[in-house]
């Protein structure tokens, strides 16, 4: 498809421009908008007769109607890929921003990818160790799973994903890489993340795709897709186990809403477009494993819940697509517990098929279920205590309160630089159960108690 060039814009509104008199333009085709030598990239989002509506990734500020030239490039948004992407930093359109020059190209890929045929998927069945007890023990991350972190403003989700990036590994020593994707990150956050990867040497196994808070917001539309195109390539062309971390998907959704509103579309809930579910699915469903291919693609998207509201459309639609969720709690955070993971609403749906005998340790499923049940019971006791007072509680109930305090301060709580092996996490779990009388432990077997419970 030849490049076609037109002079002049007939309209500029928000991040969108309209060009008239065009011919043979492709839907979602990549375009360059050029003004006085300065190039901006954009994409066709609507075609009617001889008019094309284009969303300009770098924003429209400073564009003029008369002088801007629009060049239709005859191809979709693509990026160059090879193994060399590892250790590199890219912007939201996949251009290197680390002064190390262009990436030598092995293949070029359309950043939106194609849907994996459900028939060719392989069911995910093995775990990734994050070194964080609350996750490894209670909501284990499985290779090929999409497991979001539901957080809130001011909670330490970025610390947590940095820690996961540094510590995550898989048993057996196969090649493991993290694709870290920042969407609308603030400068200090990006600074903290990058320097902590460089200091610890983690960067050599990381690819970064960065869109900062003051980068053009429209670029956020391609940012996660660029990151996942890189991740897919490493996982399915290069046989690697890849963990993609996307922070923060809430910024992505805000941009989606903004563009939708400019286009005058009828919104569904809270102003977000009706297609947000499908749009998010086109990101989250890129995760998985494929029959006959060695690698895997796992995703941890971070979602900050506006107002801590889990029913807000962004976490809600995310939860409908992903395979469980890790929820951060403000209450735990206030008590100084890091990472403040709320155990009860957190769930890894794929955990049951990737832990226990042959994966982690045979006692893991029962242990996790017991810890969950006991901690759940402790929460009931807590709410009763808050009404009738702790003194009125029975002896048995007070045991539960002790258990919960220990569980939070020793099991959930761990240092930012502390990495626990799966073995350590599980043993620690048993040590917590030692707070409770054996008669209360009905989810674990007698044999397990004898083997693991030390008093």
């Amino acid at each position, binding site marked *: 498809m030849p490049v076609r060039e037109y002079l002049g814009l007939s309209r500029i509104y928000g991040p969108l421009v309209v060009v008239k008199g065009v*011919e*043979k*333009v*492709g*839907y*979602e085709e990549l375009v360059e908008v050029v003004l006085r030598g300065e190039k901006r990239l954009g994409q066709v989002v*609507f*075609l*009617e*007769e*001889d008019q094309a509506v284009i969303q300009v990734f770098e924003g429209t500020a400073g564009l003029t109607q008369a002088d801007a030239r629009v060049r239709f490039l005859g191809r*979709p948004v693509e990026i160059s890929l090879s193994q060399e992407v590892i250790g590199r930093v890219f912007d939201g359109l996949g251009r290197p921003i680390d002064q190390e020059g262009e990436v030598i190209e092995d293949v070029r890929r*359309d950043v*939106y990818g*194609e*849907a*994996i*045929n*459900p*028939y*060719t*998927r*392989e*069911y*995910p069945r093995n775990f990734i160790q994050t070194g964080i007890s609350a996750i490894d023990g209670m909501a284990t991350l499985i290779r090929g799973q999409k497991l979001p972190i539901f957080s809130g403003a001011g909670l330490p989700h970025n610390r947590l994903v940095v820690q996961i990036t540094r510590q995550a590994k898989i048993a057996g020593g196969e090649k493991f890489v993290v694709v870290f994707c920042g969407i609308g990150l603030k400068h200090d956050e990006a600074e903290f993340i990058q320097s902590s990867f460089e200091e610890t040497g983690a960067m050599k196994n990381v690819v970064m795709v960065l869109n900062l808070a003051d980068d053009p917001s429209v670029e956020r539309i391609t940012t996660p897709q660029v990151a996942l195109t890189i991740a897919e390539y490493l996982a399915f062309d290069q046989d690697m186990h890849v963990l993609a971390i996307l922070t923060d998907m809430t910024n992505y959704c805000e941009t989606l809403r903004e563009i939708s509103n400019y286009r005058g*579309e*009828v*919104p*569904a809930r809270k102003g977000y*477009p*009706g*297609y947000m*579910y*499908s749009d998010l*699915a*086109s990101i989250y*469903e*890129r995760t998985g494993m494929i*029959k006959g*291919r060695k690698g895997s693609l796992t995703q941890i998207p971070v979602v900050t819940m506006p107002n801590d509201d889990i*029913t*807000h*459309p962004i976490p*809600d*639609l995310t*939860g*409908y697509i992903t*395979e*469980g*969720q890790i929820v951060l709690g403000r209450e735990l955070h206030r008590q100084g517990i890091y990472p403040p993971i709320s155990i*009860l609403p957190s*769930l890894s*749906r794929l955990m049951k098929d990737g832990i226990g005998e042959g994966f982690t340790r045979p006692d893991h499923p029962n242990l996790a*279920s017991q810890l969950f049940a006991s901690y*759940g019971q402790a929460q009931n006791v807590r709410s*009763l205590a808050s*009404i*009738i007072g702790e003194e*009125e509680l*029975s002896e048995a109930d007070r045991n539960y309160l002790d258990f919960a305090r220990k569980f939070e301060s020793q099991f959930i709580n761990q240092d930012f630089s502390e990495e626990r092996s799966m073995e350590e996490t599980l043993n620690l779990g048993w040590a917590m159960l030692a707070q409770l009388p054996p008669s209360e432990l009905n989810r674990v077997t007698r044999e397990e108690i004898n083997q693991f419970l030390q008093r």
Partner: protein
Amino acid sequence: MSKASIFWINGPVVKARGSRDFMMNEMVRVGNSRLIGEVVDLDQDTLTIQVYEGTRGLQTEELVEGTGRLLSAYLGPGLIGGVFDGIERPLDRLAQAYGDYVTRGVELFPLEEGRKWRVEVLKREGDSVSPGEVYARIQETSMIEHRLLVPPQVKGEVVEARPNGEYRVSDNILLIRNGEQEIPLRLYQEWPVRLPRPIKNRIPPSLPLITGQRVIDFFFPLAKGGAAAIPGGFGTGKTVTQHQLAKWSDADLIVYIGCGERGNEMTQVLEEFPQLVDPRTGKALMERTVLVANTSNMPVSAREASIYTGITIAEYFRDMGYHVALMADSTSRWAEALRELSGRMEEMPAEEGFPAYLTSRLSEFYERAGRAETLAGKEGSVTIIGAVSPPGGDFSEPVTQHTREFVRCFWALDRNLAYSRHYPSVNWLTSYSEFVEDLADWFENEVDTSWNQLRTEAMALLNEDDRLQQVIKLVGEDVLPDEQRLVVEVGRLLKTGFLQQNSFSLTDSFCSLQKQFQMIDLILYFYRRARELISLGMAISEIKRGAVYPKLLRMKEDIPAAQLEELGKLREEVEKFFDELAQRYGEGVRHAG
């Protein structure tokens, strides 16, 4: 063929003009990549098309070409065990031919064309045939005999018939003459998916769809030919419940539609079902299952079509005289596809952006459920079980509300139950089944005459327990009088020992009606005996001493279906336990007196 030129592109919706020869709902090929689409609006020489594949790269002035066919399903041998996308493309062969990602612009015939089937031909030259009649048979899988049906609009005299033998799907088996017309009958027929297949009569529901799930069969039963909804926020267990029903319900055939949901869940079915054995026939479950998979990342218009493709396949097997159960996970994603397409077509929205015709589409879909006398006078049924995914888990939203109007069974999943890992998280206070009365006779005749009475009794206890739980939250359990504490203890037995049912448990994933009945009977027996003693002044703590109470809690797991006599023994144990208490306690009374 009719042609028109594209002048408008907005995602999956495309407009073209230049011809008045297109039919409404005609299948068309769109653009140079020959994407598959359907005409959804005709206005003078302008047509609106919903495209079933991604439109990236499509250009204005490319052409739309008619095919002369309505969007139809191909119905014939080879559907069972298969997995198809929303417009019935076979995903297994698509993968073999085009690789691991769904490729655009390819059309594959859904039924394997090269495969030969052993056909027994039931009609001879000179016979007359009428709509819906079986003219040939194929043993398609070890569980399903595929009955080839005379299509609904065809009748006449057989002028040519092939002998029994091996044939491909496109081979002609019979030639029918009706006046001037000669109609060949092959191993397959076509049916436009948006039209219900005709039946002779509806038959009122009176048979249960037995699911092996206690909360459903015992408390909120579904009739064969009925429609049920499973609404629930994310993670409450809609998909697991749908999978359970697909595995264990006593339908002859299952059509499972993964509509805008996860790819891995389809994979799970594909990996699990061939391994799982049907408890009634001992055959692999995949031998009675048809999968329609249009996952959330596949094109949204094909998601809209997937529901119709699925229900058409279900009706086709119903017409053979089978009881078919169809699961749609999730109908909300289908409704959202309608909304998205409607939005792109710039239609006027009604509630929350949904088009005004949402209600009529929902009702048309659920109306296709039913128990029927087929055109050929046999009995068959289509049962529909639709998952509903309300935004924020809020049941007041339009899809849940409108669905309620068209289903008679409502299994409300509850986020709090799911959070506390009470599965299935069917809330026993807000769920209902309007089939309870229709099915009352069946349960009394086939299981036990006291079935309905026990149901009422257990439900009353659960209601009372719920009321007491509100009190307990405020003051703790210890302060309640013993009669009430007994209700709470028995409530616990009912909730943990009976309602909770772990789908991943080998013993308890499926629970026979006999076992369900004996379990509930035993729990209520326990209650009556304990109540009697407590009214005489026995302390509540007595009932939890000894082995009986924990055994009742665990009987679902400890006693497999094959050893139901163990439940009889447990009952004797309970009797003995209370007899002893009564004796001891009776003496106590005498002493005091």
